[in-house]
């Protein structure tokens, strides 16, 4: 229990540090957002009026305080360029990105585990060598290129899906899942290769340990030893890796959303960065940071559960 509390406290401190860094970094950028909104032709009066309306004429510390208390109430302020509350702007996009990331992690697990287990149980067979080679090549394909290749094969040639015809999960949930399958696959592919390779390597090194020999000498069958002893211990590093991968998968979705024209967090992050819409950028960074921190926490706790000796 004390362990959990300590972890929670570190998590809160990290998030606070991120929010301070993000807010001040964007506040210290030279240039008045009011001017970039009005254009260079604007009069001094209108600039002053808008600066006042946006609250930019008040001290930075006051604005930071308001920003933080707002976030605690779920209010991320107003977007500069959309003239809408940031939260309203992001809510549906957030849902889309979460759906995409969850599908990607699900695909990773569903593909990597059977593959890794197969390669570990049949190591050095012809198929294992072939799979290892293919793995190595797929690992080198960046998700945006595999996305383009998937579009080319399944969208353009086989016409399994129509590139660009995204439907929101609110109007058609199944249709949305169907469209997100290929984006999720292109995020998952490099992760599948890494997880299956890791699973195979750790399982093989576990299999050489003394306790496995003991298990055999007690007359257990190969299959039982593998699933009950080897795999159980090989899972620990794999789960840690999966947890670290979750952050990567979210970052990957930023790029892949662009490939498949999925209107998620990644798209609006990019337009907001080039449009200098700081409240939106700050909100997205903080939300993504929260995801990363929470997923790290879950991994630490799972880790602790799998092996109570470990205090990370």
């Amino acid at each position, binding site marked *: 229990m004390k362990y959990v509390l300590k972890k929670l406290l570190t998590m809160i401190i*990290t998030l606070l*540090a*991120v929010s301070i860094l*993000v807010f001040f*970094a*964007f506040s210290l*950028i030279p240039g008045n957002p009011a001017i970039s909104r009005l254009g260079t032709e604007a009069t001094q009066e209108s600039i002053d009026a808008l600066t006042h309306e946006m609250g930019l004429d008040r001290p930075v510390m006051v604005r930071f305080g308001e920003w933080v208390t707002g976030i605690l109430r779920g209010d991320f302020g107003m977007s500069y360029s959309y003239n809408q509350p940031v939260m309203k702007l992001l809510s549906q996009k957030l849902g889309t990105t979460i759906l995409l990331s969850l599908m990607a992690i699900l695909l990773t697990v569903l593909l990597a585990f059977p593959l890794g287990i197969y390669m570990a149980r049949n190591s050095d067979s012809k198929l294992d060598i072939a799979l290892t080679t293919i793995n*190595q*090549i797929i*690992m*080198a*394909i*960046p998700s*945006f*290129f595999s996305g*383009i*290749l998937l*579009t*080319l094969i399944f969208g*353009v040639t086989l016409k399994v899906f129509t*590139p660009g015809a995204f439907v929101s999960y609110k109007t058609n949930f199944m249709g949305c899942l169907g469209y997100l399958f290929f984006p999720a696959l292109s995020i998952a592919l490099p992760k599948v290769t890494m997880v299956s390779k890791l699973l195979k390597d750790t399982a093989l090194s576990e299999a050489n340990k003394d306790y496995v020999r003991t298990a055999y000498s007690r007359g257990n069958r190969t299959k039982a030893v593998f699933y009950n002893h080897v795999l159980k211990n090989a899972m620990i590093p794999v789960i840690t890796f999966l947890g670290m991968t979750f*952050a*990567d998968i*979210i*970052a*990957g979705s*930023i*790029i892949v959303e*662009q*490939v498949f024209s999925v209107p998620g967090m990644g798209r609006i*992050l*990019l337009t907001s*960065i*080039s449009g200098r819409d700081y409240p939106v*950028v700050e909100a997205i*960074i903080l939300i*993504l*940071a929260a995801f*990363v*921190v929470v997923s*790290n926490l879950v991994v630490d706790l799972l880790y602790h559960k799998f092996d109570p000796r470990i205090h990370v």
Partner: protein
Amino acid sequence: MIGAVLTGMVVILALWGAIKTPYDPMAMDGAAKFSGISLRHPMGCDQFGRDIFSRVIVGVRETMLISASVVLIGTFFGTIIGTITGYFGGWLDEIIMRLNDAVLAFPSVLLALVIIGIFNSGKYQLILALGIAFIPSFARIVRGEVLKIRNLDYIQSVKLYGASDFRIILVHILPNLKTVLMSSVLIGFNNAVLAEAGMSYLGMGVQPPNPSLGRMLSEAQAFIFTSPLTAIFPGIIIVIMILGFSLLGDRVGKKS
């Protein structure tokens, strides 16, 4: 072996791109628009009739230069931070490493995007952004190694001779980081190539009309129905680069 061959190929392409390209990579030729593979244009031409092969080799050169600068920044500052925190320890080490871990938890592309948001997009901004994003991983590796070396007997005996901390770090610790840095530089280079391609795919790196591999992919995507080849070649070159460096990195990692 395969890694070395692929890397060699990439280096040759980059040098070729640095010395002379068959065509001006920015020259447009209306007649050659979307022309396929031919002897004159081994990779065909893009939507403006620009020779893709010329653009690809200049793109390889740019990617290599950017990635090398990124790894240089990461290694340089990472080594300084890692050595100081690892050697001296104490509260400074505690604070910096906590911060380091917090930054390390974020994917480098995300971090680089934030920094680009502050400094604007462009080639040098991208080098700076990715360079900063790469510092923590190097700092962590170096710190771990310094911690190990610091407690070895020979360092203790040098200390007894009265050598200063500065001398110990410079003469007795830094040279011993060579092996560990060698393989992490290669892995870092691999990640840098991937990150650079991703960022320029998003339009945050080298600005048009200058060629960059990632940018070529994103531009070609608009024409994927009519002329998919425009996207295939830059993509394959990126894959070859990453594959080559990762195989080479694996080998060096296993040797040391």
